């Protein structure tokens, strides 16, 4: 199965191309309507470019091309009519430009080679000297395989993705192609963007049917899409899908970027992968499919033709296509995935291509990746106008010797610390237990052993090990009901998020002394961040001290600790000394009763043992009743004070403070300066940007100002002329390149 990619029928004015039917037959009864089929090889005047032309390995089985495929097969193309629907494949069709027909003027989907039954599967490797050969022959790719496919077979292999572009008619010579291919085990649904000559357009997804075949569904609300049973493999490693697209007509690369992310709300469950389109600004559209207003689009537009829907994306996919004469696109698609709790994202090279490499997400912003500006993966908070900023030496320096911190477990001596969520039942039990006198020394006397009781409201649960904290209450309702809470056995650390700090100027003004960054950390207040974190991501980790109730927050950037702050996280629940005295005094009464009861019980038990009769049993019962009565009396007395065991929560618990991280960046105002460089008008031409680069004037264009020019190599010039040349270069010359 092939779905073609990047068909730009930029037919010239008043030209059209026609195709005849291919020799391929198919069984309509077995074929879903509007399925996209791979047919035979019928040459057309559509040329691959030499740049990415892949060769043919004649010895390889199942090859479709008998010659080096300089020509694309017409049957590789599927067409859409003026309703935006695919033409029935067994009909002849024609494609005309929009002057003749109100039909699609451009559409763009990915080419995917699918081996639906894994019987004609050939992994194409463009790095192969052969350049990868074509997929199986027309014979093998006809629908026998399809027919044999059963609903039980739900695995669709995407074997090859190859981007290419071709044009028709008088535009043929203008085409250039680039492509990349990788191996995937993935389900991908391309999205087609139709642009009609009235400049309206629609996005239509290609959805896989239950046989794993892409089928035409017509324009739909993307959010209404649900995956059927054709997404077989679940992979818990998937985190999100990111794609980046650069788009600029004429002017080429580096006009900005737009990051998009498809996040698996429920990781590993395909049905919950959200589907995204994008608007003309490259911004993610999360609510329904997008009908962009392209009425103003002329020479500068973004085209976001793909949505991604799948469950496992093993490598990045980089469909990109260039045409020096019309437009350029650079796109990077890839998975943002997690391995061993480390996040990775796809790496885009400077030419806009991807080679399948990934990079640590934390290092993306500091890399020289073309998609390095993607520092915020929240999907909507990026700045699409941020120009590409080449990496500077300083960006990497702080990776060379990271300051790591090791949180060694603390020793607590004889003390043990238990943590429990504040639950009304548990709290009541604890409260009751804490205000209860347990005369039995073999059981935990909480009140006498208690050394601290604090309330903490941490950003997340304090790690603790399951342990049973035995508190024996004596009130009837708690008798025998232990309270199980967990013991804190280490020095708990809690990560509290990662935050991207955006740059604005993308130059030195993003740093001190012009810009500064501060961070507010709950419990700890404001603390300054070094300005070099601007443009990078920082994370905050709390280290809690449950003994003191304090917390230390460390701010990390590129695994370096760049700031720290300390505060009080806990609020002590106070105990008053007089409460203890009152409890002891109150317990005295209970103790006396307990003693009497115990004596009676002992006597009763003794009598029972001796008499071994009915009376003995009765005495035992009387004795136990006395004990219980004593317990009850003691408990009731002691419990009078239980409400004293209350703590008033203060700011330490963040009950009334700011409970989120806030990062404040102070920068100079832009004034009247405009993006992308935020400099006075005509600044580049009149003053010039700071360069400090060694080159030759001939390699430059426009104003250059040089330093310490050595003119000794200019032969034939007089000393005066050399001096003049030196003065010119050092005061500034304008290099022109007249044709």
């Amino acid at each position, binding site marked *: 199965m092939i779905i073609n990619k990047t068909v730009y029928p930029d037919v010239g004015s008043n030209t059209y191309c026609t195709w005849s039917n291919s020799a391929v037959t198919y069984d309509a009864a077995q074929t879903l309507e509007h399925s996209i089929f791979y047919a035979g090889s019928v040459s057309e005047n559509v040329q691959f470019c030499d740049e990415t032309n892949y060769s043919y390995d004649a010895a390889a089985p199942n090859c479709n091309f008998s010659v080096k495929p300089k020509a694309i097969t017409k049957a590789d193309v599927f067409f859409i009519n003026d309703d935006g629907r695919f033409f029935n494949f067994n009909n002849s069709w024609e494609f005309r430009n929009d002057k003749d027909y109100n039909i699609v003027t451009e559409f763009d989907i990915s080419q995917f080679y699918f081996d639906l039954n894994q019987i004609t599967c050939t992994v194409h490797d463009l790095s192969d000297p052969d350049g990868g050969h074509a997929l199986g022959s027309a014979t093998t790719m006809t629908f026998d395989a399809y027919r044999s496919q059963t609903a039980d077979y739900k695995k669709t292999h995407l074997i090859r993705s190859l981007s290419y572009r071709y044009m028709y008619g008088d535009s043929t010579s203008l085409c250039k192609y680039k492509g990349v291919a990788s191996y995937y085990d993935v389900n991908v649904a391309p999205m087609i963007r139709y642009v009609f000559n009235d400049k309206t357009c629609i996005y239509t997804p290609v959805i896989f049917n239950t046989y794993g075949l892409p089928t035409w569904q017509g324009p739909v609300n993307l959010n209404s899409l649900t995956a059927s049973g054709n997404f077989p493999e679940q992979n818990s490693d998937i985190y999100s899908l990111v794609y980046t697209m650069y788009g600029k007509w004429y002017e080429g690369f580096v006009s900005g970027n737009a990051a998009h992310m498809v996040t698996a709300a429920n990781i590993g469950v395909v049905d919950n992968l959200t589907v995204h389109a994008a608007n003309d600004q490259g911004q993610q559209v999360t609510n329904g499919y997008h009908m962009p207003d392209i009425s103003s689009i002329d020479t500068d537009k973004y085209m976001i033709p793909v949505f991604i829907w799948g469950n496992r994306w093993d490598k990045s996919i980089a469909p990109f296509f260039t045409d020096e004469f019309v437009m350029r696109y650079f796109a990077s698609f890839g998975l943002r995935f997690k391995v061993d709790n480390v996040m990775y994202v796809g790496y885009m090279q400077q030419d806009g291509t991807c080679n399948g490499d990934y990079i640590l997400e934390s290092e993306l912003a500091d890399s020289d990746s073309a998609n390095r500006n993607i520092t915020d993966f929240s999907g909507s908070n990026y700045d699409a106008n941020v120009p590409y*900023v080449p990496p500077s030496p300083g960006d990497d320096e702080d990776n060379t010797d990271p300051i790591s911190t090791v949180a060694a477990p603390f020793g607590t001596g004889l003390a043990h610390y238990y943590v429990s969520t504040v639950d009304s039942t548990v709290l009541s039990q604890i409260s009751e237990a804490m205000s209860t006198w347990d005369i039995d020394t073999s059981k935990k006397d909480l009140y006498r052993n208690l050394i601290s009781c604090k309330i903490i409201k*941490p950003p997340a649960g304090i790690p603790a090990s399951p342990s049973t904290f035995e508190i024996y209450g004596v009130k009837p309702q708690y008798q025998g009901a232990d309270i199980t809470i967990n013991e804190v056995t280490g020095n708990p650390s809690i990560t509290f998020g990662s935050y991207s700090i955006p740059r604005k100027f993308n130059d030195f003004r993003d740093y001190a002394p012009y810009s500064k960054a501060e961070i507010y950390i709950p419990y700890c207040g404001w603390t300054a961040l070094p300005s070099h974190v601007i443009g990078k991501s920082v994370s905050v980790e709390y280290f809690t001290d449950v003994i003191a109730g304090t917390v230390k927050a460390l701010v990390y950037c590129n695994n370096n600790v760049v700031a720290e702050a300390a505060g009080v996280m806990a609020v002590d629940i106070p105990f008053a000394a007089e409460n203890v005295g009152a409890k002891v005094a109150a317990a005295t009464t209970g103790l006396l009763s307990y003693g009497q009861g115990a004596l009676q019980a002992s006597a009763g038990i003794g009598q029972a043992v001796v008499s071994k009769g009915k009376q003995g049993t009765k005495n035992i019962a009387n004795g136990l009743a006395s004990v219980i009565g004593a317990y009850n009396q003691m408990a009731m007395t002691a419990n009078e004070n239980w409400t004293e065991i209350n703590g008033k929560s203060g700011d330490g618990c963040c009950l009334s403070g700011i409970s989120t991280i806030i990062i404040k*960046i102070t920068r100079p105002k832009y004034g009247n300066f405009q993006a992308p460089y935020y400099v006075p008008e005509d600044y580049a031409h009149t003053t010039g940007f700071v360069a400090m680069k060694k080159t030759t004037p001939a390699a430059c264009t426009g104003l250059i*100002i040089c330093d310490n020019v050595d003119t000794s*190599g200019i032969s034939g*010039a007089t000393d005066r002329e050399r001096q003049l040349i030196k003065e010119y270069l050092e005061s500034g010359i304008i290099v022109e390149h007249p044709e």
Partner: protein
Amino acid sequence: MTVHLYNCSSASNVLNKSYSIVQNNITAIAKGIVDVDNPTLLLDYSSLDFNYFYISEFGRYYNVTSRSLEQGEHIRVTGQSDPLESFAAQIGSTPVLVTRAEDPSLRNPDLADNAIPIVSDIQLDKVIGDEVIGSGNGMVVIGVI
């Protein structure tokens, strides 16, 4: 001497100037000693529609610094050598340290540029975390011996 007359539209500090031909191969008569850097010539030409010229014998371009109409429809012209144009090819291939450049691709954004005016007023940007200190009732930590 043979002089080519041009009309140059480029500023004096332009490397690879743009100029249009006014008249080629004009005969010039040297008046006395001719300074290569600042020659004065009597041209067999009667119009003042040029501002730039090239002397083949010297292999140099000149900016016109003064012109006067002489009797017999001759032009007396004085020029000043333009080494930028005369040695444009050699200058173009001379390695230089470019401290400032118009071309953004040469820009080194992380080097401070004191020529860029800094607005004294500030703007504040903020990043607010989406994680909140536990939304529940918190936790109780009990220490016992």
